[in-house]
């Protein structure tokens, strides 16, 4: 069984039509259930549920506080290379875009890490484009080794890898991976990814499962909301997380909800996801998967992010730049996309505390130290 087989069960089904037939009574019944099925999740994503957001928010808040407390984990991305061989039509790193390409050397990686670490952050996410001959898996693993003494938790958001490659990164100190399917619409996917290794839909779809098999502690998935009809992509994202949670109970599964943002390039999204709609997705996800981590990035505006804090978010980025070397470079580099929330770590902490929540910097203790191995 793979997630692709789960998706096959929905092949030919009119998911949008099923959602359109949901009634308010269906939504209210669903909200009273202790555990939800996939069909219940579909109900909460429906147009009828859009009118029940307050009731959903109350339930989501209750579940989040119960399982995660009033805490928000903080992390920041570090872009170490923007070389890319893909032609994803919506991405600033598209190989056809004429941006300056660069890759950090050892000293630059270390310096960038030290600047980030000085802000108090302890959780780091390493990012690259997809150019394995320039920024290889070994390069990414080496970067993790250079930084592991500064950050108890290092994640990667890089191209889809094999299980062996994920195991290698774990051996270098990486404990989490983030990989967005972008869209679960297999028919639409090729037109959005016309060239490059990322055009292999199935290899990407199975990558989170390979990371679970490799023993990755946290696996974070998501769809880039706006590429396809958002209700469908949100539905399959939830099913994907649900599948991984059941198949790999040792792995913490988390979800992100990136919305399309302006970038270098002229692609316009298929559908615009409004703030209300993004909130509905998050609430539905939280109620369907009460223990699932939820990340909200700086793609979203400050005031909107602040208002999301009680609704299910467990992890937020802070002090973000999406440019390679952006934490130390004095030049104005072009990032992968434009961020909306430029607040510093201190400012994010103040905003989180103002909501009665606690910013959490550290949530893992690396166990590789030989001194404790016995």
């Amino acid at each position, binding site marked *: 069984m793979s997630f692709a087989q789960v998706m096959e069960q929905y092949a030919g089904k009119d998911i949008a039509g099923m959602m359109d037939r949901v009634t308010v009574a269906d939504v209210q019944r669903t909200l009273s259930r202790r555990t939800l099925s996939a069909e219940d999740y579909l109900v909460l994503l429906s147009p009828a549920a859009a009118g029940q957001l307050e009731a959903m928010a109350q339930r989501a808040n209750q579940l989040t*506080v119960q399982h995660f407390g009033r805490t928000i984990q903080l992390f920041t991305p570090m872009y170490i290379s923007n070389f890319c061989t893909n032609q994803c039509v919506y991405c600033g790193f598209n190989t056809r875009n004429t941006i300056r390409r660069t890759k950090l050397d050892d000293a630059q990686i270390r310096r960038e890490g030290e600047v980030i670490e000085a802000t108090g952050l302890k959780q780091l996410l390493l990012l690259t484009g997809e150019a394995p001959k320039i920024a290889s898996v070994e390069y990414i693993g080496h970067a993790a080794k250079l930084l592991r003494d500064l950050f108890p938790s290092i994640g990667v958001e890089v191209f889809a890898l094999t299980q062996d490659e994920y195991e290698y990164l774990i051996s270098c100190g990486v404990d989490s991976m983030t990989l967005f399917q972008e869209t679960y619409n297999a028919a639409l996917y090729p037109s959005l990814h016309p060239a490059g290794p990322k055009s292999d839909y199935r290899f990407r779809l199975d990558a989170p499962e390979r990371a679970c098999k490799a023993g990755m502690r946290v696996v974070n998935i998501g769809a880039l909301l706006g590429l396809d009809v958002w209700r469908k992509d949100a539905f399959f994202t939830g099913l994907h997380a649900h599948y991984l949670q059941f198949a790999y*109970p040792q*792995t913490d599964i988390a979800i992100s909800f990136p919305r399309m943002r302006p970038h270098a390039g002229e692609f316009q999204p298929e559908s615009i996801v409004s703030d209300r709609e993004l909130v509905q997705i998050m609430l539905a996800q939280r109620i369907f998967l009460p*223990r699932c981590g939820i990340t909200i990035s700086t793609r979203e505006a400050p005031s909107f992010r602040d208002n999301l804090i009680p609704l299910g978010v467990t992890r937020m980025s802070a002090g973000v730049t999406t440019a390679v070397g952006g934490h130390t470079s004095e030049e104005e580099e072009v990032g992968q996309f434009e961020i909306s929330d430029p607040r510093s770590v201190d400012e994010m902490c103040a905003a989180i505390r103002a909501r009665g929540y*606690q910013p959490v*910097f550290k949530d*893992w203790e690396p166990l590789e*130290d030989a001194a404790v191995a016995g």
Partner: protein
Amino acid sequence: MEHSNNNDPLVIGGVELQSRLFTGTGKYGSDTVIPDVCRASGSQVITVALRRVDMNAAAGNVMQHIPKHMQLLPNTSGARDAEEAVRIARLARAAGCGNWIKIEVISDNRYLLPDGYQTARATEILAKEGFVVLPYMNPDLYVARDLVNAGAAAVMPLGAPIGTNRGIRTREMIGILIEEFDVPIVVDAGIGKPSEACDAMEMGVDACLVNTAIATAGDPVIMAEAFGAAVRAGRQAFLAKAGPVLTGAASASSPLTGFLGE
């Protein structure tokens, strides 16, 4: 600090405790409330997840908020097997957290139920290394026996899954542990209300660990005080030996067999 004055200490690992309420450090909106929770509850034992502790942080470290008189009970939250639990325990001791350790080995992140086999393995290793081991467990007779044989200083059965506030759903099984074992029984996880903690203490458990129910309450300090009072009340009720509970017919003032004479 308020303590029971009934000369009824709980002794674990050679440490005499006057309070039978253990508290936690997770899930608070701010760690600054922890001293007030400790004071209001009267608790003397507090558990802290080592994975959340940043020993190098000049500020924002949960340890800075734990009153000096508290007995630290670092836990192995995040451990997926015995080896990881053992490493976390050693790290905790090396970091100056003392030699008490609450073993949590959880490899199912959906239900967060403890793995009895891995817990027993970790308990055996750590008890031999001189740790005072308090393992979190399902209330299972055989697992408890393994843990006690492995050197556990107490056992910590769950009342309901972690963080659920569903109360003592495992009542019958905890009752068996009370009957069978001399080591302290500390109900850990699931207690959602002071009345449930009181109930557990009336049953005869030796202590209760409460985190989520206090940390996620509207007013954690008042809730901590309520739990402190409830645990004391339950313990006193247990010591006072409640009268028998009658089932079926009432106790008739005119016995039906009185005509039989002596």
